[in-house]
């Protein structure tokens, strides 16, 4: 059974996700009533796109580093808003072949998070059609938790 004050906030390479974290900091700032897990989903570079092993390893390292930096920046935003550091944790989660939204939903279920916080990038219809929308997918598939979509 998800617990309402366990919050899963997601970050990625887009500024909209940091915007969502800043919003969360504004809402929760100064409170020790919630525990926040900040999660970034790592998707390994596809071998077809990077056939050379070294090239693929370099792309993977670069991608992971970017996400780790995002996680730390988000953590500092929350701690800087006087949310106790012991209530804020970070997680770099490998997707393992799943989509980003599927990975987030799996983490929500596994961790019993009662609230998911995601940013919305403001995709055009064409982008949404081709690339899909993480926030839309989470809103459509979430059944036992609240979803905050921050535009």
């Amino acid at each position, binding site marked *: 059974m998800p617990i309402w004050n366990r919050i899963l906030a997601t970050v990625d390479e887009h500024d909209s996700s940091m915007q969502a974290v800043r919003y969360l900091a504004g809402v929760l700032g100064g409170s020790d009533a919630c525990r926040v897990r900040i999660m970034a989903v790592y998707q390994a570079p596809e071998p077809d*796109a990077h056939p050379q092993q070294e090239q693929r390893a370099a792309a993977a390292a670069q991608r992971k580093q970017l996400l780790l930096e995002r996680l730390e920046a988000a953590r500092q935003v929350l701690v800087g808003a006087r949310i106790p550091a012991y209530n804020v944790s970070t997680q770099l989660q490998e997707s393992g072949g799943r989509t980003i939204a599927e990975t987030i939903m799996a983490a929500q279920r596994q961790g019993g998070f009662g609230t998911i916080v995601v940013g919305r990038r403001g995709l055009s219809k064409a982008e949404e059609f081709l690339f899909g929308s*993480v926030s839309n997918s989470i809103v459509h598939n979430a059944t036992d938790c609240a979803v905050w979509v921050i535009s």
Partner: protein
Amino acid sequence: MREAPELLERARELTGRRLKQVRLITDTTEFMNLEPGDVLELQGRRYVLKGSEYEGRFGLDEQPKYWVKRALDWEDGTPKIIKLVFYEEFDMSLGEITVRCYRSPSKEGRILALVKGNPNFMQGITLRDAADNQVRVLDRIHGGPLDQHLQELECDHREYYERHLRRVLSKLLVAFEAIAWLHNQGERHGDVRRDHLFVDRDSGAWSWIDFDYNFEFRQNPYGLDLFGLGNVLAYAVARRDVTHHVVREHYPQAEDALAPDDFSPVIRNRVMNLKKVYPYLPESLNNVLLHFSRGAGVFYERVEEMMAELTPAIAELPQGEA
């Protein structure tokens, strides 16, 4: 590579050309240097080259594809298509969207192995040359692309709708099911287009060809394939690409009724709400097309979702010819 005079007679016999020399090629890395009459030797099998293939869809812009060769099997003379290793990475424009695209010989080789014996896909094998290049040797399909097949039906659209559309979409449904199956194996076609669906004149099978494109789509892994399927479906329903220009030229009575939501979200001048152009189309079929329009509230994410709505829609079409 070496010259092999003893090959000359057989190569002449197979190609019907007065070749002056024949080279036996074991390393295909420098594919630009290959010429008609050259004999490729790949893992003990031989193929004599006839020439390069051309990109056949764009009329005057036709360009030779030097990494794709027409060839004949050395043993029995059956026609083959030989795809040599050519890596490229480029931006593909889809309307206003740019997508990073990769050509991957290993992906195509993997899918060829996966679809072996499946008539819904082109057939072939992957052989290694002396430099370990993954060369794909494909069976040539005796037929042409879907658009050519549909154009051969001489009738106006109303007659096409009443006599042929049910059969055409029933065949198309099988081809869509094949793509759904591919997705369920964790693979994407990568370049779903109407000229990548071939109609075999001998067997009647509709087979997807060319699987070597790939993309890194993080959230919607099958989005590009679905976009292609939507375009193929719209083409098959209308038997043409229906653009704003086509409506103005040929269906002026429909032009005023068109709204921005009736068009593709990606190709902005392509009409997806075809019922406004062909009013006799059933709602159920048009509703499937509307999922590919700008006005759609929810887009399909899986082929199965489309098939679940397309199957009953086909059952509502006029019986037509078997």
